[in-house]
Every structure is written in structure tokens, then in C-alpha cells.
């Protein structure tokens, strides 16, 4: 069974005033271990689609199944809990809690999940080592470069071993070197842990690394290509 199954998704913003049809019938299936990019022009609906896949927003019409669970059937409280235990997030910016150190930010998800202090410190340190930022464990986000912050964000998304990770333009604020490093890292993690990644991007360098590229235009998936790399 696919991890993510989106069936005939419509999303209309501002239904009552000036409706904006952001998604117009998207069908999508994503399998475990995929490394998939969603691309398309600005305003085409990438963020909207990722939010729906990530359980941050519900479709106006259509259903979204995560390993068979229809997100529409969950209460808002259950949905929050579902995100906590199943989905990792990397945003474009402001990913981290500014008052917490890199280590604390990484531990944070585990704390929300109720993992013991000892266990979460061990796991957080391990993952910080894996993403090669352990030496900055005691730095707060303000003391880290954009690339380093995104690494910590990836570490935080990975630390709870979610079913999949959603990343909306994770490299948009990074220079090309950091972009390259972050992508290499994400791909390495994808291979090492079989973690499923779905990200939205404009960036050609990112697309070049993706094994599957879904193109959206005007809220419709118009192209779906896979690559061996």
C-alpha cells in the first residue's frame, strides 16, 4: 500500500468571498522511500498540496489517506497527534524555536511524544552527528547559518522516525553550496533510513536530485516523471 494516497483533491480558499481554486482535482500516490519533488510555477498550488499531505490543512473535496487512514475522519486533536507521530516537517525558514539550542530543538519532538529524557538526548545527539552538526549542539538558531539551521531542522524531522517528511522549499533561503549540502544530506538520509521525502521546490538543483518530479500547473498535476539516480 502507498504511504500517501490523495484522491481527487480540490482546495478552494475564501469560498464565501472571492474563491481561489488552488487545487483542482489532484490524484497522487507516494510509496515508501520515495524522494519526490513537487514543482510548478509560483501560485500553482505546491504549498497547498504539501499542507494537505502534511495534515496541516484539509481538502475542500477529495480524500487523503495516510497508510489507509483518512485524515478527514480525524478530529482536530487527533490530527495534531497524528502529525506528531507520523510526519516530519522542514519549512523554508523559521523552522526552529529561537530560544532553544540545536540539541533542545531536536529533542523537542521527542519530548512532545513523551520520550524519556535520557533516551531523547541519546537519539538527538545521534541524529545531530548524522547530519554533521553535533559540534553546534549548544548553539541557538540565531547563532547558526541558514544552512546549519536547515540541517538542524532536518535532524529534528528525522529524529522521531516519521513515516514521511514534508519539506516546502527547504533550500529557498540557501546559497548554492548550502543547497547542495542539504540535498546531499536529505538524500543520504533517504537512503540510510528509507525515509520518504516529499518537497516542493523551484530550484533546478533540487529537481536534478529528485527521483520523481510531479509538476503542478493551475492546481492540476500535469506531469509525473521518474528518474534513476
Amino acid at each position, binding site marked *: 500500500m502507498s504511504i500517501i494516497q490523495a484522491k481527487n483533491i480540490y482546495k478552494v480558499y475564501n469560498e464565501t468571498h472571492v474563491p481561489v481554486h488552488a487545487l483542482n482535482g489532484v490524484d497522487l500516490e507516494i510509496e515508501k522511500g520515495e524522494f519526490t519533488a513537487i514543482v510548478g510555477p509560483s501560485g500553482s498550488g505546491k504549498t497547498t498540496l504539501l499542507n494537505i499531505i502534511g495534515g496541516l490543512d484539509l481538502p475542500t473535496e477529495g480524500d487523503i489517506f495516510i497508510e489507509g487512514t483518512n485524515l478527514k475522519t480525524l478530529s482536530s486533536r487527533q490530527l*495534531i*497527534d497524528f502529525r506528531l507521530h507520523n510526519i516530519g516537517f522542514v519549512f523554508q525558514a523559521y523552522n526552529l*524555536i529561537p*530560544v532553544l539550542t540545536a540539541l*533542545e530543538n531536536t529533542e523537542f519532538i521527542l519530548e512532545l511524544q513523551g520520550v524519556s529524557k535520557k533516551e531523547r538526548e541519546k537519539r538527538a545527539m545521534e541524529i545531530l552527528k548524522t547530519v554533521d552538526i553535533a559540534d553546534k549542539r549548544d548553539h541557538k538558531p540565531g547563532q547558526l547559518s541558514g544552512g546549519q539551521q536547515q540541517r538542524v531542522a532536518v535532524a529534528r524531522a528525522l529524529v522521531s522516525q516519521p513515516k514521511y517528511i514534508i519539506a516546502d522549499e527547504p533550500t529557498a533561503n540557501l546559497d548554492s553550496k548550502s543547497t547542495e549540502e542539504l540535498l546531499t544530506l536529505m538524500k543520504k538520509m533517504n537512503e540510510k533510513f528509507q525515509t520518504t521525502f516529499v518537497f516542493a521546490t523551484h530550484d533546478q538543483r533540487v529537481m536534478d536530485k529528485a527521483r520523481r518530479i510531479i509538476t503542478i500547473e493551475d492546481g492540476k498535476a500535469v506531469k509525473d516523471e521518474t528518474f534513476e539516480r
Partner: protein
Amino acid sequence: MLLAIAWRNLWRNKLRSSVIFISIAVGIIGAITSVGFMSGMVDQREDAAIANEVSNIQIHNPKFLLNDEAQYMVPGAAQKVSEIEQIPQVKGVSLRLKVTGMAASANAGAGITIRGVNVASELKVSDINQNVIEGTYLTQNARFPAVVGQKLAHKLDLGLGDKIIITLSDSSGTITSGAFQIEGIFKTANDQFDESNVFVKKSDLAKLIGYPNNVGNEIAIRLNSNMDTPMVVNKLDKMMVGDIHSDKIIIQSWDQIQPLLKSMVEMMDYFSYLFLIIIMAALAFAIINTMLMAVMERTREIGMLMALGMNKRKIFNLILLETIFLSIIGAFIGLGVSVLVVHHYAIYGFDLTNAASGLNSFGYSARIFFRVSNEFYFISLILVVIIAIISSISPALKALKLQPATAIRENI
């Protein structure tokens, strides 16, 4: 970690937080020192009234209280006095002959209360002798000496050595008068008292109105500490239960004799809390405003926390904790300073000399010793926490209304 986040969030906008700390501190200092001052005033009034006017406990014939006629004596008074003197908490007992009458000089007259006292025992009961500002207090050798309040002396235009004519009814109900020589003039903090009271020797007064020297219609009891009053009253009630049941005597504590004084003390307590609550309510608006700003500034961050899977209860707790920290720091600063200020003025007193002439007519003297109970400090702190909890509700609800998907899109 919630605690750490809330605590550290406090210091993100140091200026804004400091403004709140200082506001709360100033509010608390204002409330507590004013309450300390006012309680000090009330205490002083209470102490002075006990020392100069009412003593701690008085015993009368109930008929005397009803009719205010000298003839209603306390039965077996001498025997009772010597029994009461045995009670360890008692400092002194004075058997008095108390009569209302008129005082007159060549020029004017005034209604007065005249107390015939046995000097040796009266000195242990009343502090009036310490308030004599001119002359002396009823020396044993003078003939028909009297000590009068300064106000009365002024009113009658009398000075030391002058004669004061006192008119009253004697034991047979006949109006009689006698001349006393002013040997001392006293001044207490209570002008009303000074205006209407005269002290003479009991033997002189008894002779004038035709009573034996060993009777009296008022037993005044002074204790070493006013805290023992209820306990001693209790003891006396048991001791004299027969006389009380047969309506021969009535025992009253100072607060029954001067209920106004008592209600002033109680009102002071209510007022203290009211005052505190009003100040806190005003501060609540500043706290709410600050926290609303903090929530709005952190829209994206809160959206991110929600996206990650932080549930509403935890978001609420985060904001609640931050509000409590914000308030409690100000409260501790305020309480700390208040303790020092109150302690200082509790020891050295707060000098009101310039305002004193006005205060005197209400029965206050010029140096006020502050008092704030530990309970009041504690309740102030609790109240701050309660106000913080109430103040956090609106900012927290604001945060909870955020939708993660839209909050993250915000460009703040």
C-alpha cells in the same frame, strides 16, 4: 522543556518585559506601603485608645451603662479588684468613680466626664500621666487637684493653678458643685477626649457627692498585651459567672466599648484587599497587552509548533507559564522592596509632623509605625498569580485560534 521555553521567551524582548516587571513592582510597592501606613495609623489609634481612654477591659453595672448615673456601683468592687489583680496577664486594675457633669470657669462651661481615680492603681492602668504636658498628675499632697485635657483648658480659658468648678448630682440626686484646682494639663492624640475629660482623686470626688471611698462604678483593667484580651475576658466571665447571670455586672473588652474603633480595624483589612485588587486589575491590562503582542509577534513560531504536533493544551500552558513568570518576577521585586520599606518604617516610624495638627483631631499622632501582616504579603503574591492566570486567557485563546497552515504563511 515547556518551562525553559516560557522562561527564555520572557527575555526575548527585555525592554517590554522590564516595563511589566517595573509596573507590577511599583503597583505592589504602592499597595503594600499604603496598606502598611494605614494599618500603622489604625494600630496607633487602637493602642492610644487603649492606653489613654478605654483600657483593655472594663466592668460595670449594666444599669450604669444604660442610665449613666453614678449611683449604679459595681457590687463587691474592692473584692473583685483584688481577685483580678491575681491574673498574671493583668498589668493593673483601677476602681473608678465616673460621673458626668458640667465644668465651668468664670467665662464658659462644658459637658464633661469626670473620673475619680485612686492614683496608685490608675497609674498602672492609664497612660494619661505620660501625656501631661503642663504641671503634674494628681500628687497625693495637693488639695482637690484635677487634671484636665488641654482642649478643655483652652475652651474654659483655664491654666495651671486655676479653679475649675464642677457641677454634678450627688448620691441623693441633688445638684451639687465643687471646686478643684488644675494641677496638670494633658494632651493625647485624640482632641475629642481631651475636650471632655477630667481626672480627680477618687477620695475627693466620693466625698463631694456623698459616697464611701471604697465603691466605684467602673473597673478598668489594663493588660500587658492586648492580644490576651479575649483570653482574660473569658477568664473573668468564668470567675464572675454568677454576677453576670444575675445582671449585676457586665464585662466588656475595648472593642465592645468602642465598636467604631473595632470596625475601623476591620474595615482597614477589607480596604487593604480592595486596594490591592484594584491595583492588580489595572496591571492585568498591561499584562494582557504585553502577552497579546508577544503572541502576535510569534504567529509563525506558534504555527510551526502546532504543525510539529504541539497540542492546544501545551500551547495554552506555554503562554500561561510565560504570563506567570512575567508577573511573578515583578511581584518578587515589588514584595522585596515593600518588605524593606515597611520594615524600615515599622522600626523608625514615618514622620508626619507637618500634617499632625489636622490628624490630631481624629486621634492620630505624628509618627506612624507601618505594619503589614505576613498574610497580606502572601495573599499579594497569590493574587498576582491569579491575575496572571486570568490575564493569560485572552492571549492564549488568540494563539489557539491560529491555524498552522495559515500561520506559517504569515510574513512576520
